[in-house]
Structure formats: C-alpha cells, structure tokens
C-alpha cells in the first residue's frame, strides 16, 4: 500500500536517547500520570466507593439510562452520516476542481477551532425559535444531531483526504477500461483503499459525539428522558452534589465508548492485516 509510509523501527536511538532518554521518559510518564491518569483514577475510585451494587444502581438509574441510550444513539447516527458525507466531502475536495476550493478546504477546520459554546449559541439562534429559515429544532433530538454534526464535521474528511490524494488513479482507469461502471469502480477499487482512513475518522467522530457538551447544552434544552444527553446529566449530578453518582455514570459511559473504539480499531487492523507484508 502506498497509503502509509512503512517505517522500519530501528533499535536504540541517537545520542540523546541514551543520555537524556531516561529523563525524557520520566518527565513524560510523570506528567501524564499527574495530569491525565490521576483524575481518572480518582473518578473510578469514587464510582466504586459504595460497592458494585451501588455503582450499578447509580449508573443505570432510569434517567441515567435514558440519557445513555440517547447519547449512544445520537452518536451512532452522527457517525454514520459523517462516514458518508465526510468521505464525499473529501472526494469533492480532492478530485473536483472549482473556484474557491482552497477556501472551502480551509473552512473544514473551523469546527476544530471554534469554541463549542459559540457553535451551540449560533445553532440555537439559526435553527431554534425565531429562526430566519423558519426551522425550529431547539429542544428536540434533531437539534442534538445538528450540534453533533457541526462539531464532528472535520474528522472523517481530514482522515480520508491525504489517502485519497495518494491513491493512484491508474487503478480506477484500469477498472473502467475493463468495463466497470463508475459505482463499481468506487465500490471495488476506491472504497477498500479508503476504508481504514474512514474508520480512523469514524472513531474520532464517535468519541467526540459521545462526549460533547458545549455545543449540545444550549440547543438540546436538557429535558430529562427526552433530550438530556449523558454529559449534561453528569454535569447536573455534579452540580447537585452527587459526585459519586456522576462518577458511576461516567465510568459506564467511558467503558462503553472505549469498547466501541477498540472494536473499530480492531476491525481496522483486521482489514489492513495484509498491508504490511
């Protein structure tokens, strides 16, 4: 495959890794432990502090469960939409040519850069009550989907673009000259080559959609059992002083989303298992 530069790992690095390697490793490990791992450990510790039965009771209460189902369902829908539209967007940006393409290409990064609360605010103004388009999706599940589509827009496109750029068009021409129709060429030649990149983007988009807070909190209205997603539920529990309940829901949500991410990663590795011969 020409998609990933195969780099042979060499044993032992240059000088600094002998002299400074231990120090670098120490700093890296200490920083990650202090900033990332310690708060997560405190979270898990707090979730299990009342015993497993209490953890399960808190994590699967009716309101928490409703939020969890909504969160995972919305994330799944948004991820699927992104898989299709993100790939199509990458295709248009790489293979098509039109005036202003570079501007459009630059705009793709905007959701990475725009603070999520600003995104939520403007989406509510545009597609909420008093919408200039006459579309009101505020306080509905559709509003949640819209907010999630905004924040996850770049992931699949940015993952697929570089792979599509390097993809050899001769393969497609060969298939076409042998009588394959355009859709056949896409399905048999292009799609299999893009799939690993699509899956990488999909994993990032899914993780983002499951955890999103700022963009969703305004437009969803946070109605329990209806439009309350898990991150908002967790935030509410924390604000009302139920830290261990919030931790229980968080741990369950993290376990599920890490499971999904591992499954996507595993599928990706399985698909590319012959690539590095």
């Amino acid at each position, binding site marked *: 495959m020409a998609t990933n530069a195969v780099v042979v790992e*060499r044993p032992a*690095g*240059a*000088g*600094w890794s002998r*002299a*400074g*390697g231990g120090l*670098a*490793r120490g*700093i*890296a*490990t200490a*920083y*990650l432990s202090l900033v*990332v*791992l310690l*708060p*997560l450990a*405190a*979270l898990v*510790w*707090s979730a299990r502090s009342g015993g497993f039965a209490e953890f399960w009771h808190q994590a699967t209460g009716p309101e928490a469960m409703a939020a969890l189902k909504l969160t995972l369902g919305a994330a799944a829908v948004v991820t699927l939409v992104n898989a299709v*539209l993100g790939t*199509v*967007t990458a295709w*248009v940006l790489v293979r*098509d040519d039109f005036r202003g393409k570079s501007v459009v290409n*630059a*705009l*793709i*990064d*905007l959701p*990475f*850069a*725009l*603070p*999520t*609360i*600003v*995104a939520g*605010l403007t*989406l509510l*103004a*545009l597609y909420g009550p008093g919408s200039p388009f006459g579309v009101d999706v505020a306080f509905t599940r559709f509003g949640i989907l819209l907010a999630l589509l*905004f924040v996850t*827009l770049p992931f699949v496109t940015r993952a697929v673009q570089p792979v599509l750029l390097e993809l050899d068009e001769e393969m497609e021409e060969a298939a076409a000259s042998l009588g394959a129709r*355009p859709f056949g060429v896409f399905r048999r030649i292009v799609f299999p080559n893009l799939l690993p990149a699509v899956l990488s983007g999909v994993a990032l988009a899914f993780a*983002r959609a499951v*955890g999103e*807070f*700022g963009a969703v*909190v*305004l437009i969803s209205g946070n109605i329990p059992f209806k439009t309350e997603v898990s991150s908002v539920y967790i*935030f509410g529990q*924390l604000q009302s002083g139920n*830290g261990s309940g*919030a931790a229980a829901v*968080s741990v369950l949500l*993290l376990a599920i989303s890490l499971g999904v991410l591992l499954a996507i990663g595993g599928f990706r590795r399985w698909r590319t298992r012959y690539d590095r011969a």
Partner: protein
Amino acid sequence: MSKYLLRFGVLGYLALVLLVPVGFVFYRAFHNGFAHAWHAVTTPEALHALWLTLLIAAIAVPVNTIVGVILALALVRGHFAGRGLLNAAVDLPLAISPVIVGLGLVLLYGRGGWLGALADDGLKILFALPGMVLATMFVSMPFVVREVVPVLREIGIEQEQAAETLGAAPFQVFRRITFPAIRGAVAYGVVLTTARAIGEFGAVSAVSGNIEGKTQTLPLYVKAQFDGFDTSGAYAASVVLALIAIAVVVSLRFLQPKER
C-alpha cells in the same frame, strides 16, 4: 452531471451546517451597530474573562508544547516497557468527555478527595486558576504529540547519529538536527493546542465555579450572558472567540506542510 450533483451537495451541506452558523454570529453581534458590540465586549467582566482565558492558554500551551515534544521523543525514540501504555494514554483526552475530565478533577481535589487536603494547606485548586489550568492542560494535551510523532518517525535517526559521531552533545543534536526537522509539526500542534485551550467549555466549567469577574473564562462568559438574557453581550464575546478561531484556521493553512 453526477460531478455537479456531488459538488453542490457538499457545498450546500457545508453552507448549512458550517458557514451560515459562523457568519450568523457576526451578523447578530453587529446588527445593532459596531459601537454597541464594542461596548458589550469592553465591560469589566468581559475584559476580565478575556484576560483569564489568555492567561490560562499562556500557561497550558507552553507546558503542553514542551512536554509534548519530550513525550513524542520518548514514544518514538525510546524503547522501554510500558511504551504502548504511554502511547494509549496520550490519546485518552480525545476519547473522554470534557465534563468527565472536570468531574475527575473535582473528585481528586475536592473535599474528601485524595488531594483534597491541599485546599486546607492554602493551595486552592478547585474554583481557582490552578484547577482551570489543569483542566485545560488535560484536554489540550494530545495535539503537539500527535503532530510531532509521525514526523519523528519519518526523519529517522541517521542524521542524529551522524551528528553524534562528529561529537555533538545530546542537547546539541536536538537543537541543531532534530528540532529544525520537527519545527513545522510543533507549530501546527501549538496552533491546535491554543485553539482547544481558548475554547474549552465543559471541563473548565465543571472546575471553575463560574464566578463572574473571578473564575469566568470567555466561553463561560458567553454562556452566562446568554442565560442572563444579555444576548448582545453573548454574541459580542462570541465574535471575539470566532475571530480567534478564524485566525487559527488561517494559520493552519499557512503551516500546512505539503499543499497539493
């Protein structure tokens, strides 16, 4: 024909989901006139929120840049037990909800937490600057590492070894050989880190206590003004954040390593 269908389909989707909403922020902020918007962002509370946002970024971004480069070097050049684990830990912040990050910090540094006693010793973490900085460092940690790692892989170690054979000290090798090669990637990572640090909402709002004029960053200020029915204040502050975002997007384009 299908070419045009795809092109205009994609452009239409991007316009509806992306361009119109961002443009609308500017329209709403300025439709009562520039002076009105200027007045709304120069209130003491708004200026303090902006200052606090920049201060947090000014602490979190350099730390994450320096540690990010060190982490990338350790991950690519080092060979030690637990490297895979370290690699996975770097990506964790991308997979965790910001609210959960904030919750973890509250449970760690709050009353009854493992490090909750720090507050009794006079070192206030929660509802104060240190907690907000920690939350921001957590969520913006992966970007420099993820940009630098692939570049380090690609440049290999021949040049570093050559410099070393010629008698360069380890730090000299880094300064003269390794750093010039990864400079572009570091810059790209710094821009992404800055964007995330300035815009963070969920994690910071969980730990900040959201005290106006004290622990309110600009994104928190936007939400507070909106909740308090001061929509012109909310949009004016949003414009400041959107301008920062646009500056980020433009600089990403200029830093793009290879353009077709």
